């Protein structure tokens, strides 16, 4: 009897199972972040907050809130006085004299002095620090020589503290973009005593002493970095946000979800495949802005098939339909590129490829002719390999371009992808035919783009391009103090470049952010800088 009834009364009742379930699914409470705290997405975890060792955008965004250089950026990215109240330039364009604010203070209350800047700038070129961005300070006399070990004494760098609040900087040659470069983290001051006391650990929360609008209060790697307002900052009265938390969120889809559920006020990026959705559903929060960068294909000029083949290079460049590529493939509002230097660069009118004005049909006809002249035909097509670093976006673009080349000219393309570090190795050894690459300007001046293709920059020059006429114009521009004349020289150089086409410009980058309506004071700008001190939160 027992046995029979037991079958209908199982040992594990449904109730037991429900209890098990609720053990796992514990209670849910809700709480929300403090009111006057800004939550910012930060892309990746910063590699370091040490201004002389960092290189990435994720670090720069945080450093910009922590530190202030001689010159700073306004909400719209334009240059404004930072620690330096004003400055004068000598007649030969080589000696800057900066007058520092007397009320500029470190986050521990000590004054920011010219000696701090001397200490920091010397550290910035010190080869022992091993900085990848030391070149930012190379316009200063002896800067390059010290980094490269040709001059051993750090005190021979052309910087001098005339008194506690006067800094004299001597340049190697007139450098019109030097003031702009001073906004780079590499030119920020550091607090000498903190470095002496804490060594490599000086950037930790609790150790770090900074001179910007904010100070570092918490750093949990890969989780968040919390800054709170620096009460000693000279303009602290105008800082309206009490705290800002940076969240490294590499996965852009996750970042979008965190924004949608109000965990983030500002995103670092928008996933490319979600841009259409965002444009439709979050139009008011979506900020899509031209950026100082160019996406391009480099052609290897050091070997066949592109060495000495001007016509062939032009044929390939003309048959890429940039409007279709940006409109149908990348879809991020990118600007089709017919130039190397992106639009929006200070004091620079720019040049374009000579055939920009031709219609698509005319371009095609010209390209076909050039292709035939280079000795290729449908029966004897050019066979070429495109190398790109592994990424869906690069792959889609490469597929589209190879399709365009195939259709227009019959070119047979092989796509070849490599993981980033392998790609860098192959690129450095110039073992490619066509290489996808991108370049983001380090400062707002045409030089940051044009110098990449000088003949003497070694493996940095992606194509192995060397044109003595181009190099001569660039050398002349470097020495020219008249800004108009200088811009004209660089423009002439870019025209030569766009005729030679060692690189094929494809599009100019855009940056994408989502900004919550409660954030006020956000201004889109080509440098993509948005210091927290100019933002505020609606109540």
């Amino acid at each position: 009897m027992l046995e029979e009834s037991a079958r209908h009364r199982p040992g594990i009742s449904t109730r037991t199972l429900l209890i098990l379930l609720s053990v796992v699914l514990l209670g849910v409470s809700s709480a929300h972040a403090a009111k006057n705290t800004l939550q910012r997405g930060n892309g990746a975890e910063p590699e370091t907050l040490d201004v002389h060792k960092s290189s990435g955008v994720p670090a720069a965004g945080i450093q910009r809130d922590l530190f202030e250089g001689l010159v700073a950026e306004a909400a719209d990215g334009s240059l404004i006085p930072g620690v330096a109240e004003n400055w004068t330039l000598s007649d030969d364009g080589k000696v800057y004299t900066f007058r520092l604010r007397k009320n500029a203070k470190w986050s521990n209350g000590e004054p920011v002095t010219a000696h701090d800047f001397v200490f920091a700038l010397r550290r910035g070129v010190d080869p022992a620090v091993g900085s990848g961005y030391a070149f930012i300070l190379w316009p200063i006399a002896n800067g390059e020589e010290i980094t490269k070990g040709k001059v051993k004494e750090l005190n021979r760098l052309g910087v001098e503290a005339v008194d506690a609040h006067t800094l004299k900087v001597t340049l190697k040659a007139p450098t019109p973009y030097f003031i702009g470069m001073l906004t780079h983290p590499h030119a920020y001051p550091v607090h000498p005593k903190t470095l002496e006391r804490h060594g490599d650990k000086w950037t930790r929360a609790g150790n770090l002493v900074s001179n910007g609008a904010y100070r570092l209060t918490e750093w949990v790697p890969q989780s968040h970095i919390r800054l709170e307002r620096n009460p000693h900052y000279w303009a602290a009265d105008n800082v309206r946000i009490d705290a800002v938390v940076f969240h490294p969120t590499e996965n852009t889809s996750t970042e979008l979800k965190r924004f949608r559920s109000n965990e983030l006020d500002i995103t670092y990026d928008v996933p490319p495949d979600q841009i259409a959705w965002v444009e439709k559903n979050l139009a008011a929060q979506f900020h899509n802005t031209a950026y100082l960068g160019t996406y391009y294909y480099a052609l290897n000029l050091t070997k066949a098939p592109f060495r000495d083949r001007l016509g062939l290079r032009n044929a390939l460049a003309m048959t890429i339909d940039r409007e279709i590529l940006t409109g149908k493939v990348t879809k991020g509002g990118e600007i089709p590129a017919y130039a190397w230097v992106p639009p929006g660069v200070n004091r620079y009118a720019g040049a374009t490829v000579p055939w920009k004005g031709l219609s698509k049909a005319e371009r095609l006809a010209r390209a076909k002719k050039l292709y035939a002249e280079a000795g290729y035909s449908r029966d004897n097509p050019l066979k070429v390999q495109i190398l790109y670093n592994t990424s869906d976006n690069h792959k889609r673009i490469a597929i589209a371009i190879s399709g365009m080349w195939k259709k227009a000219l019959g070119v047979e393309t092989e796509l070849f992808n490599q993981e980033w570090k392998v790609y860098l190795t192959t690129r450095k050894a110039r073992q490619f035919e066509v290489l996808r690459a991108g370049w983001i300007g380090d400062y707002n001046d045409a030089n940051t783009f044009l110098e990449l293709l000088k003949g003497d920059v070694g493996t940095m020059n992606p194509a192995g391009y060397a044109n003595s006429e181009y190099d001569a114009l660039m050398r002349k521009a470097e020495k020219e103090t008249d800004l108009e004349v200088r811009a004209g020289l660089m423009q002439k150089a870019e025209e030569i470049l766009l005729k030679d086409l060692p690189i094929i410009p494809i599009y100019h980058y855009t940056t994408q952010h989502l900004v919550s309506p409660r954030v006020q004071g956000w201004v889109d700008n080509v440098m993509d800088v948005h210091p927290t001190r100019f933002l505020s939160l609606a109540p």
Partner: protein
Amino acid sequence: MIRRLASAVPTLFIIIAIAFFMIRLAPGGPFDRERVVPPEISANLNRVYHLDEPLPKQFVRYLGGLARGDFGPSFKYRDFTVTELIAAGFPVSLKIGLLAMAAAVLLGVGLGAWAAQRRNSAADHLVMGLAMTGIAVPNFVVAPLLSLVIGVYLNLLPVGGLGDGGVRYLLLPVISLALPQVAYIARLSRGSMLEVLNADFIRTGRAKGLTERRVVFRHALKNALTPVVSYLGPATAAIVTGSVVIEQIFAIPGLGRYFVQGALNRDYTLVMGVVVTYGTLIIMLNLAVDLLYGVLDPRVRSRE
């Protein structure tokens, strides 16, 4: 047992040696960037990080550091040592992993046993159908769906980060990590439960007049657990690798992301640190599984 413990050391050494030399085979180095640094600077960096020494010497140096519990500096995250990064990330991964494991075993065995007793009923089919789905759908699909529905649409739980470390931040990642394992363990325990319930000693138990509760919990379940226990080894490995994906999707500051990112960045010391940590963990868990076997099945003990 001591013999098993002793064999763990050479196993770990072999793992370390293979990982150390394998990652050096990959082209590119930790300091390679798009912006090429002057050779003088890269020489300096290599000297500071001892990358200019011959590989065997670096290996010996690394082992020496390990013996002192020092994993070396991170090449990528230059403000931290690998030991610090692991000390920050490992407890997070461990917490999520253990919770997911506990949830998987509790729910999996519970559901499996529950379904076994309702063999061929609608409830059984429902549970097994769901389990099949759970196994078939990978967690990189489940996780974003969960965070979209529960986090964004219903706004019940946070979709990313650890916040204050509260339970509400852990729920979604733990559930996403546990789901495939729940499904697998449910199927496994249902099968073995069915087998055991038909065994002679269960019939004897019932004949003796034991309550059904006692039969199921005391006799059947204990024996049915053996295959589940032996699955715990692979399950741990699955949860460790699964956490790489889950930590990315939920922006969790765990160890998982260092596994992939470290390798891509050629952050040699960080990759090694993660390999050593996970290697030790898996070896230890396998030992624990062996011990548990002995507790559950006396025959295993006598054979040793």
